[in-house]
């Protein structure tokens, strides 16, 4: 990128500088000079440049407009014309001067919107807490400012706002009220009531150090009067009488439990109950604060302080350990229990100070009985606390209110409900705990327990409306219910969309969190989930597998061409073959005495070639495990061994800098040459096998003619990092090289070239990436996308956008703890395998959008038409020379192709199968023909005469009638008898459709008008109230025949009520890339009529939520050239889309399934 105005002297990374300036500006707005200093210290490279502009930033950041221009305005003369005169200038300056002397003109330090920052009162994972004054209301508030607003990603922010808004809905005497959530100058904040008092963690610390009154030492800051009073209340009680102190703690506990119960009833879990989040005000009243904010931390990874350990200490076992177990409200009960325990005993339940130790304690150790620490504690109180902090959620109180009730029973000297665990229970607990640890550590064995929860402000508000309406009439109750439903539906759409995004980022935990709250809580709550939920749920729970078998690191992998088998090799010298489905080892190939550097399957999957550190390349028979041949043409290590795609040549590369080419049929050496002066780092064949691409660390990348041995192509790059790998796209048109990032020099990344001729190429923009490992870059099998690896353990999928200078990061898979050697996507794109320096080898089902995809072609022809039958079992393709191909989909989603040769002899522009699959209507370029496929008649059996008048035909749902479109109308015909039941006159008709119940026939015209004819009532005609916008291109009835959807040439889909003929909804999303009109090719209703799938002339299949009219998500199928047909299976478990792939002769069938077939 060239920037004209970059100062030439500067070597600074400008985007980074800009980012730092943003961070500094954010700090300045709230007056945190100390942190600005820290930023400068942390970034010495940019510090000088930053310091230069810092004074500017300070001034700008504290500008306060409220006192501004209106005052200077009046001093300016009304006419300023032409050149400025001296006097004008003077006056302007005078106005400057006047402003400076005016008392009103005071710049207020640290004003954030309506809030004036008074002082910092604390900081933690959530950011910084300030005491502030809300200027408009003149009230004191606590302002929590989220750290680094500009750096948080959208999902985190969305989440933060949802949770905070939900918590803002809580109204309880013991919950600190949230006044609002907002964003000013890019800083996100929560404003809540300022509690004058002290948090219990400070209280505990102070109580511990009594009688020295040591808490004043805390933070070095003077406690406010309120804090002192609050402290006094507690400490006086404790020193006066231990008994009354215990009772006081029980009271506080009961109040906190009440507050929690209230929140739990609203579906909000606190997740971070700890002494620091319980406040005691100056009247001794208890407040719970920071509801729902805990989960933000985990996502943001921006935890500022070592506060995490402090939080961990109070976490329930399921929260601290559970990777996949879902945490419910009982986690709060546990955390409150530990807090009370600490308050009573003066020490934490688990006192460990390192993470691992605490985790172990939480999982394994029984807490010291309270009365051993404080003998004066009543046995009932001890029992209550022990029950609250039971390891298993099921052993704790059912609800926070149960805990509160029991605490109050203790206070009232009544017998408590809690029972001490029997010795049998303890034994059971130990056993269960071990299994819990097992569960937490071994992924894939965990049964996910689901707990319904939903929480955002919309739902909360709607629920409140429901509640208040209860006291009014039934009518308004119904309205309120509608509103609640409305709100829940919008939440649903938002969450689906977010979950899909999370899926593309491989964040399954986030997906589950977003999805789980839409599981109906009880039978009364309506289930809003549709196809998309079930699909995403499947993705969210797809498993990742560690393949265990290799000793040490794995350097190389290869999938067999059918994606069923995986070969791996590494530092232990053994090649292992795995069953991809089961993750089990099928065979081990022993022979190499040192590292295995590359492995490659032969296309038939029966042989394998490998390159070894022992100086040999070896050919293996997979069936027997025998070594067939050993190639010993190199001195020293063999780094690469490849079979050409045409299977006639084997190429090996070695540390001796030589490449050896062998005849693959007789293993004889053809040629030896030295492609580079330095070591060869990457080797690949072009798909036609005619060219061998080699790459060396410092470049260039060279293409060699395999036959002649001549250099044909020399590719250079501007990226400085050493090239470690190279890959060629399936069509040979693109080459990519991976550059290793060393010492954060900014030189790592990917270089791309587009090959335009024998020795000509265009260099596409390089991608300079952070942290690129470079050791593995591989094109994905079916498209211009490549997988690359990072030094920190990630695998990234890059996608070519079609624009030479734009690449898109499609997915980031966070997979390993250390640098990744190798990442590869299986030919069917269903699996991703990767290996790392940390000895891991992982196989995961990819969470790319498509569950499965199949390429389809008709040999020797171009595919001109596609149709899917309504039962989604049969897909018919019509070819340009009259051949028809039929695919049959079985339950296991495997496809059985049937080629039907039909002597049409001309292009089939449209093809329709009857729903019972007995009839086929083929629309040719000049006429239409109908044929029977019934078993009694042979395929291609009795022909109806070609009818030149008919331009398209449609079958009724029962396959007994057919509607044949002619230029000025539609013939409604009995199929077997060919008896014309009615003729509808409708000039310009281009589309028609029967309703599933057989009552309606809909016809649409080129002009966009749509007519409905009542087939059961004298063929009466109705017209949809449309304003013609564009040519009608597709039409579909909902499954219950109450709705009809129309798609037009301008990309808009409209939804109509059959009953009222009114437009109900409109679905449109603009095309972001091409700007071309995106004709709607196909529309499909899900069987529950909740979701609309839309296929247009773009690469996305879009799902829309009918109730809200909002887009749920956009699936990107493999097809790049538009989506021709979309269809849901009748059971709602599958979505199928068909469209042309990269090449016009090739079509792709993409299937999304709610159940991964494996």
């Amino acid at each position, binding site marked *: 990128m060239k*920037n004209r*105005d970059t100062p030439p002297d500067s070597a600074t990374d*400008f*985007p980074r*500088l800009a*980012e730092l*300036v*943003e961070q500094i500006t954010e700090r300045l707005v709230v007056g945190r000079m100390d942190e600005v200093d820290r930023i400068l210290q942390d970034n010495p490279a940019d510090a000088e*440049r930053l310091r*230069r*502009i810092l*004074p*500017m*930033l*300070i*001034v*700008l*950041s*504290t*500008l306060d*407009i409220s006192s*501004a*221009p*209106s005052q*200077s*305005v*009046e001093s*300016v003369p*009304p006419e300023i*014309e*032409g050149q400025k005169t001296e006097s004008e*200038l003077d006056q*302007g*300056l*005078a*106005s*400057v*001067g006047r*402003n*400076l*002397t005016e008392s009103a*003109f005071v*710049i207020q330090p640290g004003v954030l919107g309506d809030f004036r920052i008074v002082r910092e009162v604390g900081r933690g994972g959530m950011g910084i807490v300030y005491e502030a004054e809300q200027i408009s209301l003149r009230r004191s508030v606590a302002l929590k400012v989220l750290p680094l607003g*500009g750096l948080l990603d*959208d999902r985190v*922010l*969305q989440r933060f*706002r949802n949770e905070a808004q939900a918590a803002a809905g809580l109204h309880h005497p013991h919950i600190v009220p949230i006044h609002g959530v*907002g*964003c*000013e*100058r*890019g800083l*996100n904040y929560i404003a809540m009531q300022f509690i004058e008092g002290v948090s219990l963690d400070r209280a505990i610390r102070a109580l511990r150090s009594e009688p020295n009154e040591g808490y004043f030492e805390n933070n070095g800051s003077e406690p406010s009067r309120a804090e002192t009073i609050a402290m006094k209340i507690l400490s006086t009680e404790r020193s006066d009488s231990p008994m009354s102190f215990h009772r006081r703690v029980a009271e506080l506990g009961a109040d906190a439990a009440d507050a929690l119960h209230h929140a739990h009833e609203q579906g909000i879990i606190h997740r971070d109950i700890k002494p620091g989040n319980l406040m005691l005000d100056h009247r001794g009243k208890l407040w719970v604060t920071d509801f729902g904010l805990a989960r933000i931390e985990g996502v943001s990874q921006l935890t500022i302080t070592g506060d995490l350990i402090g939080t961990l200490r109070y976490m329930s076992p399921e929260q601290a350990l559970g990777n996949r177990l879902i945490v419910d409200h009982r986690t709060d009960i546990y955390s409150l229990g530990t807090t009370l325990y600490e308050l009573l005993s003066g020490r934490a339940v688990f006192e460990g100070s390192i993470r691992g130790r605490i985790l172990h304690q939480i999982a394994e150790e029984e807490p010291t009985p309270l009365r051993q620490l404080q003998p004066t504690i009543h046995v009932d109180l001890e029992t209550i606390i022990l029950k609250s902090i039971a390891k298993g959620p099921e052993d704790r109180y059912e609800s926070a209110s149960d805990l509160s009730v029991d605490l109050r029973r203790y206070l009232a000297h009544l017998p408590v409900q809690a029972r001490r665990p029997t010795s049998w229970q303890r034994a059971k607990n130990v056993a269960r705990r071990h299994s819990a640890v097992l569960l937490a550590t071994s992924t894939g064995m965990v049964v996910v327990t689901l707990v319904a929860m939903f929480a955002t*402000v*919309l739902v909360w*508000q709607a629920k409140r409306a429901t509640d208040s309406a209860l006291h009014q009439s039934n009518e308004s109750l119904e309205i309120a219910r509608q*509103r609640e439903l409305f*709100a829940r539906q*919008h939440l649903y759409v938002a969450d689906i969309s977010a979950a899909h995004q999370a899926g593309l980022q491989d964040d399954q935990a986030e997906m589950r969190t977003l999805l789980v709250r839409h599981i109906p809580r009880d039978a009364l709550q309506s289930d809003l989930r549709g196809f998309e939920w079930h699909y995403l749920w499947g993705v969210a729970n797809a498993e990742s597998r560690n393949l265990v078998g290799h000793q040490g690191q794995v350097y190389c992998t290869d999938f067999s061409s059918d994606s069923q088998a995986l070969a791996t090799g590494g530092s232990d010298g053994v090649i292992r073959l795995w069953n991809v489905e089961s993750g089990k080892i099928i065979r081990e190939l022993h022979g190499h005495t040192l590292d295995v550097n590359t492995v490659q399957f032969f296309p038939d999957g029966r042989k394998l070639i490998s390159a070894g550190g022992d100086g040999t390349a070896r050919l293996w028979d997979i069936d027997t495990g025998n070594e067939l041949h050993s190639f010993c043409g190199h001195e020293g290590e063999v780094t690469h061994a490849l079979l050409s795609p045409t299977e006639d040549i084997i190429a090996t590369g070695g540390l001796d800098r030589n490449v050896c080419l062998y005849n693959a049929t007789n293993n004889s050496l053809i040629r030896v040459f030295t492609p580079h002066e330095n070591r060869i780092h990457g080797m690949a064949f072009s798909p036609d096998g005619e060219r061998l691409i080699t790459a060396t660390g410092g470049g260039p990348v060279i293409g060699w003619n395999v036959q002649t041995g001549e250099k044909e192509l020399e590719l250079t790059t501007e990226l400085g990092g050493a090239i470690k790998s190279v890959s060629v796209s399936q069509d040979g048109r693109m080459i990519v090289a991976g550059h290793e990032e060393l010492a954060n020099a900014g030189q790592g990344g990917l270089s791309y070239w587009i090959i335009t001729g024998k020795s000509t190429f265009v260099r596409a923009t390089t991608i300079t990436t952070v942290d690129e490992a470079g050791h593995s870059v591989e094109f994905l099998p079916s498209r211009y996308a490549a997988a690359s690896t990072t030094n920190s353990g990630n695998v990234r999928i890059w996608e070519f956008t079609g624009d030479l200078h734009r690449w898109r990061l499609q997915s980031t898979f966070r997979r390993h703890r250390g640098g990744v050697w190798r990442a590869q996507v299986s030919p069917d794109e269903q699996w991703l395998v990767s290996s790392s320096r940390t000895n891991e080898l992982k196989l995961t089902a990819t969470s790319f959008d498509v569950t499965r995809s199949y390429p389809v072609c008709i040999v020797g022809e171009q595919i001109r038409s596609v149709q899917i039958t309504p039962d989604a079992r049969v897909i018919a393709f019509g070819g340009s020379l009259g051949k028809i191909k039929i695919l049959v989909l079985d339950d296991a989603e495997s496809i059985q192709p049937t080629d039907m040769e039909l002597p049409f002899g001309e292009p089939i522009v449209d093809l329709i199968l009857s729903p019972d699959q007995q009839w086929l209507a083929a629309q040719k370029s000049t006429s239409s023909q109908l044929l029977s496929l019934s078993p009694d008649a042979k395929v291609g059996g009795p022909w109806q005469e070609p009818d030149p008048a008919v331009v398209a035909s449609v079958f009724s749902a029962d396959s007994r009638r057919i509607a044949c479109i002619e230029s000025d109308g539609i013939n409604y015909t009995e199929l077997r008898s060919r008896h014309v039941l009615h003729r509808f006159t409708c000039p310009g008709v281009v589309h028609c459709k029967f309703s599933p119940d057989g009552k309606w026939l809909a016809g649409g015209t080129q002009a966009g008008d749509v007519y409905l004819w009542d087939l059961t009532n004298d063929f009466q005609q109705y017209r949809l109230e449309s304003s013609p916008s564009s040519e009608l291109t597709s039409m579909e009835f909902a499954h219950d025949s109450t709705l009809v959807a129309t798609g037009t040439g301008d990309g808009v889909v409209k939804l109509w009520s059959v009953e009222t003929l009114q437009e109900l909804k409109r679905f449109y999303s603009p095309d972001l890339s091409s700007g071309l009109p995106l004709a709607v090719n196909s529309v499909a209703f899900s069987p529950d009529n909740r979701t609309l799938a839309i296929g247009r002339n773009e690469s996305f299949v879009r799902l829309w939520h009918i109730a809200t009219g909002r887009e749920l998500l956009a699936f990107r199928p493999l097809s790049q050239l538009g989506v021709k047909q979309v269809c849901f299976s009748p059971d709602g478990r599958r979505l199928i889309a068909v469209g042309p792939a990269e090449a016009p002769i090739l079509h792709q069938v993409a299937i999304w399934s709610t159940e991964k077939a494996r």
Partner: protein
Amino acid sequence: MNATRSDTDLLLLQAAAGSDQAMESLFNRHRSRLRRMIAVRMDPRLQMRVDPSDVVQETLLQANRKISKYLLEKPIAFYPWLRQMAWDQIVAMHRKHLYSERRSCRREEEVSVGLSDESVADLASKFVDKAQGPLNQLVRTEIGERVRQAIDQLPGIYREILVLRYLEQLSIVEAAEVLKIHNSAAKMRHVRAVERLRELLDQRGDESAS
């Protein structure tokens, strides 16, 4: 994507569901920002005739009329949308009140309302006050002039980003949206603007020293 937007989205949803209250609070939350923007942008001579609050009110009325269309299309985020309408109003008003009479002596393109001279002065005045601490009137005036000239010389696009960020108090994301450029581009433009301003001030200093 903008943080304010998601929050606003909730209200928009409710507004779409027919809640007048949501509409009201939606407008309320942006009222002061709009007013701020108008005050910064509107010619002071015009401000003597037209109260910025009236412009705000007119904008919100217009927004109310157009909101359903907006909800359907959602071309841009809500505040930038409001701001755009306010902007159009200001331009129309400038055209009507100020330029019709004096087209002969002002070039037509000046109708495109920029930053008013007074806003420049305002920026300048603040620099002086913040950066210098107590100084006597004379020195202040001199520095004020220097700052003002520096701001005057700042290329338009740089001045614009500073105004958006510091006078209109838009977040960088919103500023990017208003300028129709990418976030990172806005950030970089911001740094360049600040750096250039610094350079200009230095040059001025050199000149006056020599």
